[in-house]
């Protein structure tokens, strides 16, 4: 239909160099029709969203009608939706699991992603950046079930057998350099506070002291972790790490866009004033790009919340809030995994309460997704990615 309209329009345009009033009107009508048609097609996603929303709302309504249910949903951890006669819908543990996995993966992905984006856009030259970009995109392309399979078949046994050693090595590898680097400004700051006019020797001594303190803190943490026995390899940590890898491409590429939207003149101005590249990045570029980076983080967040297969396969699906609550080495369960796992058996035809509670969970997911989306749109519409130039 689309093609026919186009063809007719084309033929008319070809044939009629001099148009009479009649054909002109016809053409306008055609143009209107065409536009209407385009609008209709464009409305398909909207219709889909409306249908999805309507449908999920309708199916979860019976659950929300009972206020006691709703309170239990958000406050209790007693999840037994199919027990006949005495069902319970406490989803606190599931909500908490979702939050935990999301926060955990963001804790890994956000620093890594933003530094990678800075590295790609500010530090390495364009050629290397062009080589690295596809590697980042590769992470985005790999299907979630492949990640899930990796988490279950490769990562979980590894974590279970050598988890403590692995993680402590990771802490040492990441922590020692960071500790070493951050001891420098710390010592500088401390010396300027303590002494009026710090002697170089005092600064060096402070620096060594701060470095040693930080490094030993890291080493202590690593030592503590190395003793941890991970009883089950499918846990919140596993899911978080894998989800972080999945969220990385989103965060890196959008942050990079935001960073490169900062104009050359700002950079050059800052460098010309004698700032080092590090200071330029932290004091000029990052503040300018912060809303764009916020969008990147939000979108990464969204990707993580909605992911199903990885958490289903890697999180262990336990119904408990870990003890203590920050223990990432215990299995947790998320909303998406609950839906995927339980919908197969919920009696849709008999319309049991369990079916509706699963839809209520979908609604939670959908609402949080929409809220995040709205937030990111708000930030974008305020000009997060508009070219930023210095000199107002």
């Amino acid at each position, binding site marked *: 239909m689309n093609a026919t309209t186009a063809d007719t329009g084309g033929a008319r345009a070809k044939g009629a160099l001099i148009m009479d009033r009649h054909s002109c009107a016809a053409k306008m009508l055609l143009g209107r029709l065409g536009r209407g048609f385009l609008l209709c097609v464009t409305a398909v996603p909207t219709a889909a969203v409306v249908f999805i929303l309507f449908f999920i709302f309708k199916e979860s309504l019976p659950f929300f009608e009972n206020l006691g249910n709703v309170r239990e949903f958000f406050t209790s*951890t*007693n*999840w*037994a*939706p*199919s*027990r*006949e006669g005495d069902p319970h819908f406490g989803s606190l*543990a599931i909500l908490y699991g979702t939050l935990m996995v999301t926060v955990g993966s963001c804790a890994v992905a956000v620093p890594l992603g933003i530094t990678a984006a800075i590295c790609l856009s500010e530090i390495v030259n364009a050629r290397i950046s062009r080589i690295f970009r596809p590697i980042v995109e590769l992470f985005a392309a790999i299907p979630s079930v492949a990640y899930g399979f990796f988490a279950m078949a490769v990562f*979980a*046994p590894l974590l*279970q057998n050598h988890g403590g050693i692995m993680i402590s090595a990771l802490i040492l590898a990441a922590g020692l350099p960071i500790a070493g680097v951050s001891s420098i400004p710390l010592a500088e700051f401390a010396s300027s506070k303590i002494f009026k006019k710090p002697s170089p020797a005092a600064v060096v001594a402070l620096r060594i002291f701060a470095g040693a303190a930080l490094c030993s803190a890291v080493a202590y943490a690593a030592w503590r972790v190395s003793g941890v026995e991970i*009883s*089950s*390899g*499918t846990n919140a940590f596993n899911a978080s790490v894998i989800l972080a890898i999945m969220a990385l491409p989103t965060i890196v590429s959008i942050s990079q866009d935001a960073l490169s939207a900062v104009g050359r003149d700002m950079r050059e101005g800052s460098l010309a004033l004698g700032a080092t590249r590090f200071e330029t990045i932290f004091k000029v570029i990052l503040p300018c790009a912060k809303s764009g980076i916020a969008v990147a983080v939000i979108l990464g967040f969204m990707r993580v919340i909605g992911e199903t297969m990885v958490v*289903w396969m890697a999180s*262990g*699906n*336990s*119904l*408990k809030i870990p003890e203590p609550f920050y223990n990432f080495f*215990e*299995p947790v*369960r998320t909303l998406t995994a609950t839906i995927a*796992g*339980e919908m*197969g*058996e*919920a*009696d*849709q*035809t*008999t319309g*049991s309460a369990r079916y509706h509670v699963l839809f209520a969970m979908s609604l939670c997911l959908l609402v949080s997704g929409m809220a995040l989306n709205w937030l990111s749109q708000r930030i974008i519409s305020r000009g997060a990615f508009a070219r930023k130039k210095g000199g107002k």
Partner: protein
Amino acid sequence: MKKTIATTMTLIALAAAAFTSAPAMAEKNIVIDGSTTVGPIAKAFADYYKEKTGIGATISESGSGNGVKSLINGACDIANMSRFMKDSEFKTCVKKGILPVAHVVAFDGLAVVVNPANKVGALTMAQLADIYTGKIRNWKELGGDDAEIVVISRDTNSGTYETFNELVLRKNPVVKGAEYVGSNGQAKTRVASTKNAIAYVGLGFADDSVKTLSVDGILPSPKTIVSGKYPIARPLFMFTNKYPKMGTPVYDFVTLHLSEEGREIVRDLGYVPVAE
């Protein structure tokens, strides 16, 4: 470039068409949905039936409840179930004009399995229930190593869970820290790779990679299951809408388990044929 793309597309489409040039089936496939426990039987039957008659079967393993759902919607011919229909399901069936008929295709015992490195070899029903309700949390209490028990359960939606919950836990809730896995195979794999884990799986899944425990002193085996000595056993069902008309593929399929061949397949898969 447009041309190249178009040509490639056409070539791909042609290749696909060529690969699938298998003659269109004269007889329609049998559509089967339902339990993951009955899945292996249905798949093996389908392979055998296809070889014998040329009629294939489409099998989805989406869980017992989903099987009923499909049967009610008319989306499948046979619903595999590892439990009997619930009252509510049965009533809905009847309301929608479906008359479910149960065919018991095999018996299955739920084997309680642990990692081969585990020292514990036998449990009583009470101990098992205590483990799963969280009263016993350490293998030490059962004479094993001093290590926390990693409790693995099937998803609360599975027929296997419901059987276990009814027969062992007497409908008490499973301990909150339990890990839930989506299938028998996954449960077994988790136990095989996790030193302190315990799980329950269908007898057909308990192979040499895990260690089967005896319950109340009895190990699950075809003999002990049929005689009723082994306490955690259940029948496996295929449900059809009404009794299938004799001579139809569906009839052949749901009566396959009665033939010598069908019984042998059931046995080879590690389940117990009916009337053993």
